[in-house]
């Protein structure tokens, strides 16, 4: 048998090492990336479009803009369908059916991203090439594939927050003669708003962070996109494509790209936690 004090000490040591290992990663990325940022100049790094590592030029503006547009596109595809699906499943579908479909959709979140990427290459890109022209592997393909990939996240969290709206709200409204749809769009969605927003923010995080699917479908050309049909390279793709052979300044530049991604994720999480905390307070 363990002694009470012994157990507590053991647990504290484990907790401390787990947390410091995680802190170490963050620290490591920043230590590798920040000196480069200071040396090269934050402004030049973020706002220059010149990415030629072999000649010491490290401007990641094209990747920032690619990541931004791909994420925005993914939101435009994923959010409406995801929220519509969540409302339909939570409000207009029999409970038994929903309890089958919801786990099935959650299961799809586990489908490997390389498979989504592959579908993008063999099914979606040819369609885009046929219908709109261009290379097919493009910003548009990336946005659509990522939009599909975030659907399970958006649907699952939104359903949870819609179901968390007290039944008494709904019954009160229905008892006053409102139709289910009136109740939903005047009441339920407002009450579940923060959960739905949080689901979208988490989806954004997923879209920004996705790497393999994006590498496969966006074409990876370093350029500022002029249209949705252009080939683009995102921040994550940039790290993945060049990491294995990068050395010196080049490697530091990739770590600095990691720092940028890190900060975006911290920012998104901060917003999400504020949104969720607000919900707790207004409850």
């Amino acid at each position, binding site marked *: 048998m363990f002694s*009470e004090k012994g*157990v*507590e000490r053991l647990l*504290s040591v*484990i*907790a401390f*090492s*787990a*947390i410091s*290992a*995680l*802190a170490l*990663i*963050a620290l*490591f*990325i920043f230590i590798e990336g920040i000196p480069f940022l200071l040396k090269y100049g934050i402004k030049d790094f973020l706002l220059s479009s010149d990415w030629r590592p072999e000649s010491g030029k490290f401007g990641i503006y094209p990747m920032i803009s690619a990541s931004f547009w791909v994420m925005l596109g993914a939101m435009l595809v994923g959010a409406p*369908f995801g929220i*519509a*699906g969540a*409302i*339909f499943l939570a409000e*207009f579908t029999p409970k038994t059916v929903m309890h089958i479909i919801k786990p099935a959709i959650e*299961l*799809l979140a*586990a*489908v*490997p*991203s*390389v*498979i989504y990427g*592959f*579908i993008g*290459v063999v*099914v979606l890109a040819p369609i885009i090439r046929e219908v709109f022209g261009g290379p097919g592997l493009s910003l548009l393909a990336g946005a659509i594939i990522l939009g*599909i990939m975030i*659907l*399970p996240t958006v649907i699952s969290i939104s359903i949870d927050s819609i179901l968390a709206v007290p039944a008494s709200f709904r019954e009160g409204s229905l008892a006053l003669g*409102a*139709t*289910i*749809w009136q109740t939903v*769009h005047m009441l339920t969605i407002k009450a579940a708003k923060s959960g739905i927003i949080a689901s979208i923010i*988490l989806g954004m995080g*997923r879209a920004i*962070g996705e*790497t*393999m699917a994006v590498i*496969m479908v966006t074409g990876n050309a370093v350029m500022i996109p002029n249209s949705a049909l252009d080939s683009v390279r995102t921040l*994550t793709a940039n*790290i*993945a494509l060049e*990491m294995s052979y990068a050395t010196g300044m080049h490697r530091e530049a990739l*770590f600095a790209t*990691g720092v940028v*991604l*890190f900060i975006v*994720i911290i920012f998104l*999480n*901060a917003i999400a*936690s504020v949104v969720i905390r607000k919900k707790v307070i207004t409850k």
Partner: protein
Amino acid sequence: MRVSPKYTQIGAVTILGAATAFTVAILIFIIIFVLEKGLPVLSFNFLFTNPSDMGRSGGILPILIGTVLLPVLAIIVAAPLGICTSVYLVEFTLESRVTRLIRFGTDCLAGVPSIIFGLFGFIFFVTILGMGWSIMSGGLSLALMILPTIIRTSEEAIRAVPKAYREVSFSLGASRWQTVRKVVLPNALPGVVTGVVLGIGRSIEETAVVIFTAGSSLLIPTSLFDSTRTMAVHFYILAREGLSMENAYGTAASLIIAVLIVNLTAYWMMHRFIAKRN
């Protein structure tokens, strides 16, 4: 013109229903597409023979082994660390600024792109510690990647155990650790298991981290410091290099089936656990 609420409702339901049907159809299409092309390739032979000619022909035996070893190593490292950490945070510390900071930090790390863990693992384990591309480097990098998720999900599961249970246990003369062992953990188990299974699932499907830390050797590993290849990586390489579409589909189908098995097992375990409880 004012449309009657009845018709608005019919309109809204139609649009929502169509959007839902479309969503579900696309998601089902992806699964069917892969299984339809991949299942005919799948056979006992395919799973249990060595690949030849860079994977153009032959089976996926070493890849199967890599796909089991890496997630297993990751979970062996991350699950005890993550669960102990969450127990410590919830049961042995008071809620304070420090615990809130830790929670925010783990939240952020859970959302950080996996490629960053790949970058870290590549530089730290592969290069600085000199482990090279190996099962060890890959497993440890994956462990760090899933650790925040395991901490957060078990923390939530532990927090959800009613305070009254703890109070009763203390009032009957239980120590804190006895209370955790006999009342808190058994009740938090479904949630804790879910977190661990999510971690296994993420390790199986992860590609970027594995390529950069475990490499992509096609040989059967003989030690933890050998390079290996998982199904996700194998599929990616076959599809990207256009080596063999047939074997790529076969690998994709195995991958999807593996992920489905892991998730359904977790689902079934949780249901059995809940059913047994009541």
